[in-house]
């Protein structure tokens, strides 16, 4: 441990200097590999096949490249920890994008105030615009007005463009439940924007 001139040594091993906080020393996470070496090829394969779509989804929902990169890594950590489930999925693309969507929606919910602010901006813009907005961006901000499960159903329907039957199968829900969630989303969206919405034959 090196204590800097004029610094103050803190109990946790950090040093403060002129209001700066300096940390020297500490313990890294235990990442010992007790098992036999494995090929790194699977990670490369997952990256090649799915990372672009996951990153695209994270960028779309989070609207922040740095956060999207972080979320991309988190999603793949989850995938690596659930490989049997991943491999058993009927569609790897659908499965992994659902994980990404769920992860990003959780992040957005954690900063709901900002998300709501974006919705208010969209509301204000709708009052002045005469041209139709980017529909996917509109879906994104409208998600903040909807209940949790309706948010995921809305992404599967309006962004991934799964049919209601496909969503029901993917989520393990009944068709009427999926339809109900979509109605909830559209109802919240209508209320938020104060206008009629098309796009769902419900």
């Amino acid at each position: 441990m090196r204590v800097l001139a004029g610094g103050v040594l803190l109990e946790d091993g950090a040093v403060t200097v002129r209001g700066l906080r300096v940390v020297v020393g500490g313990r890294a996470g235990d990442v010992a590999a007790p098992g036999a070496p494995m090929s790194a090829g699977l990670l490369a394969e997952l990256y090649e096949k799915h990372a672009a779509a996951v990153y695209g989804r994270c960028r779309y929902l989070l609207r922040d490249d740095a956060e999207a990169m972080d979320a991309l890594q988190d999603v793949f950590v989850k995938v690596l920890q659930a490989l049997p489930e991943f491999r058993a999925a009927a569609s790897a693309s659908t499965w992994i994008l659902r994980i990404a969507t769920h992860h990003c929606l959780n992040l957005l919910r954690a900063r709901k105030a900002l998300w709501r602010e974006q919705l208010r901006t969209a509301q204000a813009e709708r009052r002045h615009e005469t041209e139709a907005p980017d529909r996917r961006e509109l879906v994104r901000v409208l998600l903040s007005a909807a209940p949790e499960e309706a948010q995921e159903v809305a992404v599967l329907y309006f962004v991934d463009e799964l049919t209601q039957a496909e969503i029901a199968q993917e989520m393990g829900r009944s068709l009427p439940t999926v339809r109900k969630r979509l109605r909830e989303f559209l109802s919240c969206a209508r209320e938020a924007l104060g206008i009629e919405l098309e796009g769902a034959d419900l």
Partner: protein
Amino acid sequence: MNLDLGGPGAGCSAMRVRRLLAGELSGVEKERTEAHVEGCERCAAVRQEIAAEREALRRDVPFPQFAAAVAEKLARRPQHRFATRWAPLAAAAGVALIAGTLLVRRPVETETVRAKGAASARLFIQDGKEVRELSAGDAVPEGARLLLSLRPAGRKRAAAVLVEAGETSVIYQGRAVNGTLPQAFEWTGKGVATLLVVLSDSAVDAKSIRSVADAPRGADVLTVTLRR
């Protein structure tokens, strides 16, 4: 005014196009989708979007950076048996793109740890076929490649400078990326050098930093001592 939010169309589905391109469709479904996509403008737009996603990934998150970052996150969950098996492999892929190479990984005590309970940085070292995190007191071998991984914890800007006797080299200056910096570097000096990593909410002029005191007020500064 009515707004159209979209949704699946007659034969159109963004996910089906994804699955087609990912080789997940077969038989009649594959043939039907291929035939549809051929003349569908909407599906062509989806294909363009997928191509753009790939470009963005290559540009923003090249595989070495991605793999090292995933390795680091896995390493933070040591209680998970799977993580302990994967972390070194991903780290290796991250630094050197070595698939199938025999890798050695040791539990270590590093000099790079958390500040403010969140901001942190880690330094990976590749020496020949071995890839590991730099341990406290470790000598850096000649020719070894070093890769710095950041955990900015909300800080927006970052700089990394290598301070040696009479010389300071800028390793990185720019956005506080969450994960591994895109470029590895090599330390060619001898004796002792200090790697200063500055994470700040405001812009950091890396060229002006020669010691901790040069960092912007309120910044998090992390130091790593290199020895040879």
